[in-house]
């Protein structure tokens, strides 16, 4: 039994070394991005974040359309994925007979295993034509006067990007929400039934109990949507503009890096692209930190509602290179 003490010492040392390594890696990525974008930072300063022009020919670079496009597409995706994902979670924990629960949950999670390039191809050949048909119908009605539905029906654009992202995010939201719902103490539901609640009311009580955990699940999905590159690039239309329209071709931060990095010549251009990576890195960190905080706040509360929540799956900006 003596020796176990020694082993534990080694364990502590080993795991803390690994933990420190992870922190050091994140810091190193941040520093490298800072270093790689110094020319652009020096030239544009904070106006890089608010600049609307992206012109490699004249050397004018501003990130706002890309930040806008990234937030817009990710929020749109969540608008669709959050209700659907939570719905799947409720369905597979409370509604379906127990023996079907695991296979159904497994099928929903299988969506996460599809490579994003496959989503992109499916988007180009299946989703975009459908969206274009829908847009063509809408653009013949008076709805076209609304800013949300203005512009010609290209098919490629924000709506397609949002829908494809939603599909990719659903398994993350549903699987974490399912974990949260399963961790709600049985006493909660039994208490609801004891008070004469219907099944729907009991489910609502469970959802309310795990609300922060579910919000955390949605945030994880947001982080995932934020960094997604390949599928978005293939359907978003790749036009850097600030538009409220769902029909308008727009752009995202990850997409512009993937598209332009390999052919970028000139130091300022390269540094500007790296700074886009830096912006993406900073925003992704903030989003993930917020989601972690939410989950911790639940874990500290009564009961361990989000026991076993998987780590947020985020795509570091460096992964953008896969597109080349």
């Amino acid at each position, binding site marked *: 039994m003596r020796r176990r003490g020694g082993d534990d010492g080694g364990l502590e040392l080993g795991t803390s070394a690994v933990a420190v390594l992870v922190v050091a890696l994140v810091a190193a990525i941040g520093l490298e991005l800072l270093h790689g974008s110094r020319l652009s930072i020096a030239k544009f300063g904070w106006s890089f974040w608010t600049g609307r022009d*992206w*012109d490699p020919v004249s050397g004018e670079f501003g990130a706002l359309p890309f930040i806008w496009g990234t937030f817009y597409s990710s929020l749109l995706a969540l608008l669709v994925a959050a209700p659907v994902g939570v719905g799947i979670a409720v369905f597979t924990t409370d509604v379906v007979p127990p023996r079907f629960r695991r296979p159904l949950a497994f099928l929903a999670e299988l969506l996460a295993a599809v490579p994003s390039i496959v989503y992109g191809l499916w988007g180009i050949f299946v989703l975009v034509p459908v969206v274009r048909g829908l847009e063509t119908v809408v653009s013949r009605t008076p709805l076209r006067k609304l800013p949300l539905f203005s512009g010609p029906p*290209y098919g*490629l654009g924000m709506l397609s990007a949002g829908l494809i992202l939603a599909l990719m995010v659903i398994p993350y939201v549903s699987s974490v929400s399912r974990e949260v719902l399963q961790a709600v103490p049985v006493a909660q539901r039994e208490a609801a039934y004891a008070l004469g609640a219907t099944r729907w009311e009991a489910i609502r009580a469970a959802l309310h109990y795990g609300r922060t955990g579910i919000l955390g699940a949605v945030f994880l999905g947001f982080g995932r949507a934020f960094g997604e590159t390949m599928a978005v690039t*293939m359907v978003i239309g*790749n036009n850097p503009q600030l538009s409220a329209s769902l029909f308008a*071709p727009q752009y995202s931060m990850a997409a512009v890096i*993937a598209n332009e990095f*390999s*052919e970028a010549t000139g130091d300022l251009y390269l540094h500007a692209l790296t700074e886009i990576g830096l912006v993406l890195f900073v925003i992704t960190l903030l989003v993930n930190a917020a989601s972690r905080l939410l989950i911790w706040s639940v874990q500290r509360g009564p009961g361990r509602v989000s026991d076993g929540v998987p780590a947020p799956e985020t795509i570091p900006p460096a992964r953008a290179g896969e597109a080349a």
Partner: protein
Amino acid sequence: MKQPSILGPAALALLLGTFAASAQTQLNGAGATFPAPIYTKWFSEYHKLHPGIQINYQAIGSGGGIRQITERTVDFGASDGPMTAEEIAKAPGILHFPTVLGAVVPVYNIPGVTAELKFTGPVLADIYLGKIATWNDAAIQALNPGVRLPDTPIAVVHRADGSGTTYIWADYLSKVSPEWKSKVGVATSLRWPVGVGGKGNDGVAGQVRQQPGAIGYVELIYALQNKIDFGSVRNEAGVYLKASLAGVTAAAAGAARAMPKDFRVSITNAPGKESYPISSFTWLLVYEKQQDPAKGKVLTDFVRWMLKDGQKYCADLAYAPLPAQVVALEEAALAKVK
């Protein structure tokens, strides 16, 4: 991997004897994606002829190729666009060697129109500037008197990824339209006045195929291999030409008369009745002064072979070969590489 131990002693002796100077020489290159298929073919054929020489090529894009050869992390670079004066200043002594030719063609999808459309440079520029917005615009109708063009809006499609194809397209539009030159300019990525961006040739072609009223541009090779029909373009001599490998080589021959010594020449809108106007060279980037003379010799031997024997592989892969005049000029220039 061939290991000497599995070769017979006689073969080993032969190998060492024949390739004493260059045994197991490895060259590394990186750059343009457009010529990557023919480069790969050349390097593998050359390896068959000279088993001691292994040439590796990474198709990381022209921008990456220029960066890597500037930092001397590769033995040669490759680019679809010539290096700018600013870039050359950072890589003193760099030489350009044209290898093959490419061309860009306009593709379109107009409901009810099956006839082959004719375009001029200024009309293409105005379409891409957003000034011509419908297919029955008087400017397009005037070029195609026999065709009934609908009032469908024109949906402009361009490349979203930085690309040599975009460079050639924009280079041509700049030469024929002063407005394009001042408003948009020439680069591998642009600030596009209108339209949507597709990823790669397939992204552009796919969007054009799906979207009624769309126009896009793709590499000639891509259009030929995928049997996509495309329009003809009026060249500098006033002849409407549908792009072909012969037309591209003719454009290069037309430009060869005024070839600058460093081969950094744009052959868009080249003179000559048979010259297809949206054509371009693609280049190898090689330092005049090689750090390792042995490697330098291997490299120049390869380029010499590529200019003569290598060109015959062009047809199989649908690349336009270099005209004889350019080959002669390059062979002379190759003597400078030491």
